[in-house]
């Protein structure tokens, strides 16, 4: 079974990842493991926007990580220059993707904290970005985890599973 590293740079984030690791392995067919890395995010801060540049972050750290497909989890608000924000970012067929917890947390929308809700969203977003790393494009099936999600509502609507067509395309 190939590996999928879920990389955290903050020890607290591990508590959100551990409960969903097995499920991610089952769904992706890749052995998901939790990895801690020291990552300095300051160089990626855009002061005017108070956000962090996800594209630069991926470019810099992609080469430093192992050859396994990896998804980096952070709690800062990510953006790419042309967009107001991104939940996550991955290059098709790349090695590293980034996912932000910032806009996945119910608190961002003025709601009380809900760890289970956050983990459900996080799992979908990790699996979605993993899909891009293995060359999957967005899917037209609304329930497929590869359906495009531009809002937290979109994330909640879709399932954490691949549709049969997307599943078939995942390289083993």
């Amino acid at each position, binding site marked *: 079974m190939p590996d999928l590293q879920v990389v955290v740079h903050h020890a607290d984030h591990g508590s959100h990842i551990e409960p969903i690791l097995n499920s991610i392995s089952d769904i992706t067919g890749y052995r998901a493991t939790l990895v801690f890395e020291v990552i300095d995010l300051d160089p990626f801060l855009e002061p005017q926007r108070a956000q962090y540049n996800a594209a630069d972050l991926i470019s810099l750290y992609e080469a430093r990580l192992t050859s396994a497909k990896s998804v980096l989890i952070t709690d800062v608000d990510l953006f790419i*220059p042309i*967009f*107001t924000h991104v939940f996550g970012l991955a290059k098709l067929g790349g090695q590293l993707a980034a996912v932000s917890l910032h806009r996945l947390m119910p608190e961002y929308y003025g709601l009380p904290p809900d760890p289970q809700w956050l983990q459900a969203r996080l799992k979908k977003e990790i699996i979605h970005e993993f899909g891009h790393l293995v060359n999957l494009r967005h899917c037209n099936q609304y329930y497929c985890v590869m359906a495009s999600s*531009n809002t937290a509502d979109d994330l909640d609507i879709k399932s954490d599973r691949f549709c049969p067509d997307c599943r078939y395309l995942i390289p083993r």
Partner: protein
Amino acid sequence: MKIEDIKILIVDDEEIVRESLSEWFREDGYKVDTASDAVEALNKLNETRWDIYFLDIKMPGMDGMELHRRIREIDREALVIMITAYASVDTAVQALKEGAFDYVTKPFDPDHLSNLLRNAAKHSQLTRENLGLKGTLEELTRPPQIIGVSKHIQDLKDLIATVAKTATTVMIRGESGTGKELVAQAIHAQSNRRFFPMVSVNCGAISETLLESELFGHEKGAFTGALYRRKGKLEIADGGTLFLDEIGTIDMKTQVDLLRAIERKEFTRLGGNETIKSDFRIICATNTNLEASVKRGDFREDLYYRLQVYTIQIEPLRQRTEDIPELVNFFIQKYRDKMSKPVKGITGDALQMLTRCAWPGNVRELENAIERAMVVSKGERLVQKDFSLNQAQDVETVSAGLSLEEVEKKHLLRVLESTRWNISQSAKILGIDRVTIYKKLKKFGIDRPENA
């Protein structure tokens, strides 16, 4: 059309915008290419057709506004979305006025961009579908073929092309079977109204009371038997053409209502109060002498002049016999396909015989003769014998047990009717001079009919 078939061209001088947008769209399955300036974009436009363009307004050299104008000159169906910063929203609004589909401001909200692209893709799909359907409709509404090589037919085609482009009322005159409805169809098919219905009403085939209801429609309970509201032909023909055949047969009351409806383009259904507006074009046809009807007071003079704006006269077949060979070939082909018969043509003798006939029933009669001959034909070519049934009928009318004088009178009348009382032409056919014809008319006590 699927998403994968939609092609997007992103034109922006900033590499980050080009790369990020194209990556984003590719993830959604679109075919994407980029250009860093207007010149590169125009070169790519020459190579292939793009469905959706994203154009940055501010670019060195030719800006997005000018590029938008150039694209619209080349491809009017292309959808253009302008990319702008907040500072240049006014310019983007100007682009919308010039026909751009929408604009997006940098940085883009992913949700907004996604919805915008989805709408643009849907719009593009519908535009293509619409063009495809229009093409199919063009095929279906192709003008009917008017067959003939004579100068009259060529002039007729020119007249049809000229009058079709206008909204003028047209009166088509000609003997029965000359193809008046075909000419009306050709006018409709070549007009701007061709995508709307052409509604035909044979005024002579409908009783006076029914004709009124047929033309204007009726409300529920307007008369006994009016169980439901029914739209009239004038209403159905909205946007299209109303063809009124045998217009000379309509009664005075309907003439008044029709005149009002033609002039105001509005009317009420029978038994109703609601004013119905309808934009129809009238083409009418007659084979009777309307002028005589006007003189007798059977046809309203005002309606006559309203309908007589532009007249097309179709000559009877006997006056353009040079059209017969082409018509014969056309009908042979038509019925060969319908009947799946191996008939390829007609022998010279048979064709000569057909050319000599007077064809009082005109093209319709000729078509029927060919159809009958095709039914009995056994060879590859139609021969005289295949038409024997028609000849037998002809012979019978002159060889019945009549006296010589009666036969002469009958034959004289028949020839005069076939030439629409053209004395010179009749004299030529009979091989006598015009004075002799007048003498014989006097001798037999025959008066020239009013409508001749």
